[in-house]
């Protein structure tokens, strides 16, 4: 049985051309494409292909990777025109003889396939991705039922790969836009019943470059490797913002809802 399953494993199935966009910061040149021919074995991912090039063909190729199994979110890149994690994309499943690999868009390029994700982390920091309470030191545990956890659990799966910002057509032209990742995390903390920081986050989320900049093209949810569905989070966040104008937003699980200081910031 095992022999059948392993049949053909380790043998070269076909040769595939990788067309990789290269950029060397030490040379005063614009990025250009370079082609490499690599033998493909069964079960070989795009990341394996890139590492093969690095080992055998061109040692100067740079990429960023860590876990090789879709957990760390380091190897996001544009493969044949769509954002994908290189470690999760099988070469044979793509079914093409030419595989075009680009670094993620809407970020700076540090070198070759390494994007400069500082913008992503800055935006993530802006929405205060931590639980905000009035007291400095917690006196006891903050209680939460499994049902209350379900209300935001899916958004905690974000691995910060940054592919949503690369796919987002709004981020393509607006540098200040918070982006799907940060907005989804904002919603995740607002809908957490232990959190009281709604008003503190309001001026960041409820701004021109915040939640209202989204046009719901759904590209972020389409490319998300963990099924976080940031587009859903943004629309639900909008619902919170619009209802907040008429009905005071009550944070679930808290005895007293936080005071609504101002809604004049709604634009």
């Amino acid at each position, binding site marked *: 049985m095992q022999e059948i399953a392993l049949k053909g494993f380790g043998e070269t199935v076909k040769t595939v051309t990788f067309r990789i966009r290269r950029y060397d910061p030490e040379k005063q040149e614009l990025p250009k494409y370079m082609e490499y021919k690599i033998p493909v074995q069964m079960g070989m991912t795009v990341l394996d292909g890139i590492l093969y090039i690095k080992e055998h063909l061109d040692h100067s190729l740079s990429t960023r990777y860590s876990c090789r199994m879709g957990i760390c979110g380091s190897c996001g890149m544009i493969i044949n*025109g769509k954002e994908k994690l290189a470690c999760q994309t099988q070469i044979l499943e793509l079914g093409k003889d030419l595989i075009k690999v680009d*670094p993620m868009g809407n970020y700076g*390029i540090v070198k070759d396939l390494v994007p400069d994700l500082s913008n992503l982390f800055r935006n993530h920091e802006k929405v205060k991705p931590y639980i905000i309470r009035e007291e400095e030191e917690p006196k006891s545990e903050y209680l939460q039922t499994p049902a209350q956890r379900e209300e935001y659990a899916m958004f905690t799966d974000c691995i910060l790969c940054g592919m949503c910002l*690369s796919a987002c*057509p709004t981020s*393509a032209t607006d540098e200040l836009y918070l982006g799907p990742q940060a907005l989804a995390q904002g919603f995740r903390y607002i809908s957490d019943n232990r959190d009281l920081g709604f008003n503190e986050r309001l001026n960041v989320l409820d701004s021109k470059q915040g939640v209202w900049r989204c046009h719901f093209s759904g*590209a972020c949810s389409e490319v*998300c490797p*963990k099924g976080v569905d940031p587009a*859903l989070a943004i629309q639900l966040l909008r619902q919170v913002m619009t209802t907040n104008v008429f009905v005071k937003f009550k944070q679930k699980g808290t005895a007293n809802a936080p005071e609504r200081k101002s809604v004049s910031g709604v634009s």
Partner: protein
Amino acid sequence: MTIENKKGWISWFNPFKYGTDRWMYALHRLTGIALGLYLIAHVWETSNILNGPVTWNKIMVDLDYPFGAHYGPYILSLILLVAVYHAMNGIRLTIVENGLMLPKPYRPEFPYKAKSLRGLNNLLKIVLGIFMIVISIVGVYYIFTGAVL
């Protein structure tokens, strides 16, 4: 030294490889720009009535027979399609962008197909698509024959 790698406005019109919503977004942008340009032309066209009936009639005929043939109704039909698409998708976006007709937060399961782009959102697309087709047929029929279907 890092360099910029913005996709730029050209990527608005690059919905290939993404889903239906991304296509509709690109079309919405395109139809929006087309309608904006049409509106300017429309204001210019109707303002010609200030120049008297002779000029007005001449421009009406010129617009009905551009490039020497009777293309007027075809152009008008195209504008109608553009407007109807923009209106129908606008209705959908107004509903969906307020968080209505979307699923509650759920547990993602392996193929990781986003539910916000499917389910009731898809139903809305189909229903409004049918509306769009019906309105277009009635409108185009009226443009070509002058009779209400």
